């Protein structure tokens, strides 16, 4: 299949992240979370990153969002290497790459109201006065399918799915170019997952977003991703369109993931939207 050569939005080159293990007292164990990761992501597309737990997915997400410093490697974004930037410069780049976390409970401060949560990014970036930010926050609230009356409630009063909507709205409030969804659907019930997945697809077309969708669920990856990259032990071992990954997996890790899908012996090509 011919792939049009588009300039990539973000390009990762040979990313390595090592942790010196201080969990065990007295040992100087070194753990490699990322072992030479390379891939690129075209604008407007969705790359689904799949792997088992411990394969390094979340570490990758944090490095891309600028919240962790990789040990070595390069991340090209907007013409600059993020890894080389200092803290101040990084702070200007971070708003363009936003993260939606897996656990909707811990990613929203329980002491804040929904309105405060949505206004926070705008306040931090000082983009407008009180009325402006409130109005934009309420508009965001509606765009993810929640109503304005909910603005005064605290996160504890929302359901899991609603909380994720809130988290997504917050991520979008600064009009980022790249949204990284780190297992964002994994903690939700099945039916809710479908709803939020569809919401994500709608938002992508409305706001021309690029997604990096991280998951351990290959079926979900196929549903949402234009391309799938498989990670195993800190490395990208295989990359390709969903059909290829399903029908002709090359690597052992990929085969394991395919086999883990219930009913995978009968895998049709999954439709993009419901």
């Amino acid at each position: 299949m011919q792939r049009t050569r588009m300039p990539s939005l973000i390009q990762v080159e040979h990313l390595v992240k090592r942790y010196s293990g201080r969990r065990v007292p007295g040992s100087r164990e070194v753990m490699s979370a990322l072992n030479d990761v390379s891939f690129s992501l075209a604008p407007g597309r969705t790359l689904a990153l799949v792997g088992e737990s411990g394969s390094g997915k979340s570490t990758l997400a944090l490095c891309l969002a600028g919240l962790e410093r990789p040990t070595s490697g390069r991340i090209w974004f907007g013409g600059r290497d993020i890894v080389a930037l200092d803290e101040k410069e990084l702070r200007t780049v971070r708003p363009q790459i936003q993260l939606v976390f897996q656990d909707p409970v811990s990613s929203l401060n329980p002491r804040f109201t929904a309105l405060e949560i949505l206004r926070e990014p705008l306040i931090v970036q000082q983009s407008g006065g009180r009325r402006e930010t409130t109005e934009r926050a309420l508009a965001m609230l509606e765009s993810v399918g929640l109503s304005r009356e909910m603005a005064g409630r605290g996160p504890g009063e929302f359901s899991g799915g609603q909380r994720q909507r809130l988290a997504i709205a917050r991520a979008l409030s600064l009009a980022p170019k790249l949204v990284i969804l780190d297992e964002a659907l994994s903690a939700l019930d099945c039916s809710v997952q479908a709803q939020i997945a569809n919401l994500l697809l709608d938002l992508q077309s409305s706001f021309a977003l690029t997604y990096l969708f991280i998951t351990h669920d290959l079926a979900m990856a196929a549903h949402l991703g234009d391309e799938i990259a498989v990670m195993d032990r800190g490395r990208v071992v295989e990359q390709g369109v969903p059909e290829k990954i399903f029908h002709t997996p090359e690597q052992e890790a990929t085969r394991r993931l395919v086999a883990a899908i219930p009913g995978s012996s009968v895998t049709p090509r999954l439709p993009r939207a419901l």
Partner: protein
Amino acid sequence: MRFLLRRLIHAIFLLFGVSILTFLFTSLAPGDYFGEMRLNPHIAPETVTALRAQYQLNRPLPVRYWRWVKSVVHGDLGFSFSYNSPVGPLIWVRARNTLLLTVTATLLTWGLALPLGVWSAERRGRLPDTLISWAMAGLLVVPDLLIALGLLLFAARSGWFPTGGLASVGFESLSPLDKLRDLALHMILPVVVLVLTALPLVVRHVRAAMSGVLDAPFLRAARGHGIRRYRLLYRYALPAAANPLISLFGFSIGALLSSSLLVEVIMSWPGMGPLLVEAILARDLYVVIGGVLLSTLFLVAGNFGADLLLYWADPRIRTEPDAK
């Protein structure tokens, strides 16, 4: 083994750190033993200067510290101006008495707190637990000052216990058994005060730790196997709850040492407490430093003992992490 070695080195560093800290603090304060003398019109200022020089008080701080460290190694721990003798022998006698009191009090406290706490946790929410919690709360609220004074009054009024000191008159002429009896009689009240002060906190922590463990699945499984209650509690549950309790043990030693200072003064027990107070009032520098350091030594030793206990009790500490 590496764990213990590390803790030992840690303890030694701690002692050094404390000695330096104390020296530093005391040098920051204005005045010294001879300061009071200067106010006395009968003593010429030259005499004071000469005395200070004789006792090396006019030398810079690091020099004084080094000389003091050397004297510690000799066992002297500096020189007491009031008693006109090296601090070492003076303090060891007192320290022995303080240890007698604190060690007995620690053993008694834990000896009482463990069964009380375990029982409380077992009967959580029921009558024994409520009674014990109230009793402990009541003890917590009454300051040790009051308990000590109260018991002193009781001793004075009732005449059942001696109101102070270590030994009665004519102690030497008693038989060994009577000597022991006499000592015990003198020790009872101070020890009781210390135990009553420390008991509430320890019982509370034991109860909390045990409550956490009693809900655990492995214990339910053991009960299902038909293991007897006593074994269940003390051989299965308590070791699992031991970790936080062992750290508490180290802490309780420190708390008891501090309380013992006050109790010794009130009940005239010849330990480090009265010596320290006296030395403070007389501005006897090296006695004070020696006292502080010695009590720190006991505390550190006690904590190291707790580390030893931990090492013995928790197999996870013993497993070498890099032996894979």
